[in-house]
């Protein structure tokens, strides 16, 4: 009966420590085969500080309460035809991007944490990974449930897991997680636990969730809140793993530094999608990508790396490039998607006059100089009935898999190209960060499943664009893809709200 007096922390300590026993008939190395090959030296697992401090029974209780509230709101959203109350139908394309690009990463995280948890000799780390794994599974499920409502009213949601595995731009987030999951357990923890969950997560979730709030999407806001209390624990785990490795042995420092350099750059490249979503896909803007980057990366990372300096860890090597790119990133990304709007499972469009003015105001050094003239040309082409769709398959970066649309910050009109030769072949990169990652582990990255190469090799259906986009990707051609203007989504939206397309109004007036 004395157990009742234990507080949660003690209960958790007992839960984890009781799982620790001496191995009598197998060697430690045989049981935890992956613990040492990366070169990380752990001398004492008992120094691990448990970040979660939740026992299973309390975990189920808390999560069940959150789920009850969450699903009540989903129901209310559906019953009140919440889909009709978002700002406008363009907004829903941000949610399509989230469901195809981000939600499957939650599933990959569930899978990854379940896998690496098994590899750690320390029981505290094992249980923490298991808890996070469960959270991630819950997140992917609640996100799918939240968005399934939109699937009834908008196009482009129907094949999200299939698309995640195949579609060219989804190969960017997918390969990021595949890269992490195929690394060793400690590298995975730096990649996902630290870089993604601790440093970059605010740049990913805050814009999507505030974007949802600003655009009337209460279902998405609610799953964001429901996940947020879990995220706080995940961030603690991400920081704990870094501090633990650094405190265990000084030989770990250079290895951890290299992983931080690598994974912050990899993660930042994936966030290109968020940059574009914030500046272009939200009808009601929250803040610009540049503003959010300054708050959630520049300020937050500067203070974080000040803390880590006492371990000998420095600001990542490529942070300076990321900071220089902040005034260009979203525009370059949206240009890529506008170019390839026929090959995307969501709609693209040219910003309205008002939106262009907002972009000029937010990006006074770059927008009018580099991007407005391009958009004006594209708008002219649209008005002439020649909406520009680029029929050439783009060259991709071997590491991040993004089309080569980024420019050199020294001369922002020229594409940033880097090359490496390996084993008689030439490989292309978008940046020094991506090139260095390749050069360090070429045997890993020569295996990259690059969507464009796979198409040319005939591994993605037939030889025609329709074979790849329609049959292999399962994009419903003419419905899910192409410009927002003229799409069935737009037509339905206008019918719900008795809106007329501008052309019809003109016709009637004349």
């Amino acid at each position, binding site marked *: 009966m004395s157990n009742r007096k234990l507080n949660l922390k003690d209960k958790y300590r007992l839960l984890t420590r009781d799982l620790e026993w001496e191995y009598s008939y197998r060697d430690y190395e045989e049981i935890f085969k992956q613990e040492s090959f990366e070169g990380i030296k752990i001398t004492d697992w008992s120094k691990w500080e448990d970040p979660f401090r939740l026992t299973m029974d309390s975990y189920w209780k808390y999560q069940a309460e959150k789920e009850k509230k969450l699903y009540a709101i989903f129901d209310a959203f559906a019953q009140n035809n919440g889909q009709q109350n978002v700002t406008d139908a363009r907004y829903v394309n941000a949610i399509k991007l989230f469901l195809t690009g981000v939600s499957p990463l939650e599933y990959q995280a569930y899978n990854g944490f379940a896998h690496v948890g098994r590899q750690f000799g320390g029981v505290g780390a094992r249980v923490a990974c298991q808890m996070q794994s469960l959270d991630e599974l819950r997140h992917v499920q609640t996100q799918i449930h939240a968005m399934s409502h939109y699937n009834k009213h908008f196009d482009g949601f129907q094949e999200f897991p299939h698309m995640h595995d195949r579609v060219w731009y989804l190969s960017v987030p997918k390969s990021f997680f595949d890269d992490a999951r195929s690394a060793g357990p400690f590298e995975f923890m730096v990649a996902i636990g630290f870089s993604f969950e601790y440093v970059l997560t605010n740049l990913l979730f805050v814009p999507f969730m505030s974007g949802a709030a600003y655009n009337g999407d209460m279902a998405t806001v609610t799953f964001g809140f429901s996940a947020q209390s879990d995220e706080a624990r995940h961030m603690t785990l991400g920081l704990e793993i870094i501090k633990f490795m650094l405190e265990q042995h000084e030989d770990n420092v250079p290895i951890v530094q290299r992983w931080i350099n690598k994974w912050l750059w990899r993660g930042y490249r994936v966030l290109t999608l968020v940059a574009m979503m914030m500046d272009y896909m939200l009808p009601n803007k929250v803040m610009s990508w540049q503003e959010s980057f300054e708050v959630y990366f520049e300020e937050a990372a500067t203070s974080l790396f000040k803390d880590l300096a006492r371990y000998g860890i420095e600001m990542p090597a490529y942070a300076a490039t990321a900071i220089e790119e902040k005034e260009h990133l979203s525009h370059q990304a949206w*240009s890529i998607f506008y*170019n390839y709007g026929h090959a995307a499972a969501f709609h693209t469009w040219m910003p309205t006059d008002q939106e262009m003015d907002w972009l000029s105001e937010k990006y006074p050094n770059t927008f009018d100089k580099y991007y407005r*003239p*391009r958009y004006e*040309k*594209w708008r002219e*082409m649209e008005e002439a009935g020649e909406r*520009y769709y*680029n*029929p*050439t398959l*783009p*060259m991709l970066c071997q590491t991040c898999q993004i089309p*080569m649309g980024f*420019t050199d910050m020294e001369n922002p*009109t*020229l*594409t940033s*190209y880097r090359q490496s030769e390996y084993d008689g072949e030439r490989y292309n990169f978008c940046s020094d960060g991506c090139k260095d990652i390749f050069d360090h582990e070429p045997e890993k990255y020569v295996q990259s499943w690059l969507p464009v190469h796979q198409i040319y090799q005939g591994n993605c259906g037939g030889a025609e664009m329709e074979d790849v986009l329609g049959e292999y990707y399962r994009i419903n051609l003419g419905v899910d893809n192409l410009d927002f203007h003229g799409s069935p989504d737009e037509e339905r939206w206008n019918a719900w709200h008795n809106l007329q397309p501008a052309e019809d109004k003109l016709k009637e007036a004349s």
Partner: protein
Amino acid sequence: MRFYPLEKLINLHDNYMRHFKIDHREMLLLQHRGELYLIEAHCPHRAHPLDAASIDDGVIQCAAHHYQFALGDGRLLHASEERCRNLQTYPLVFEGNEVGVMLDD
């Protein structure tokens, strides 16, 4: 000015294309319908390599965004984004059994 030999005449034929790097300059030597051209190796728009470009009827079209330039004088003929400068072309110099280019030292 200095003469840089590029290719022996005997090696030239229609659809010939070769990339040269002289100091910081990168150039493409190509033969199209019996005419020989020497142009800069990257598109003036976004610096995409032009060795992947298609050539038709005296017009070179970059693979990346389909910008078109006249091979003869490098004029920009078609832009699918904002306009860019013309393509740089270099006059060819024939010396003995070789073709080359005169460049500043």
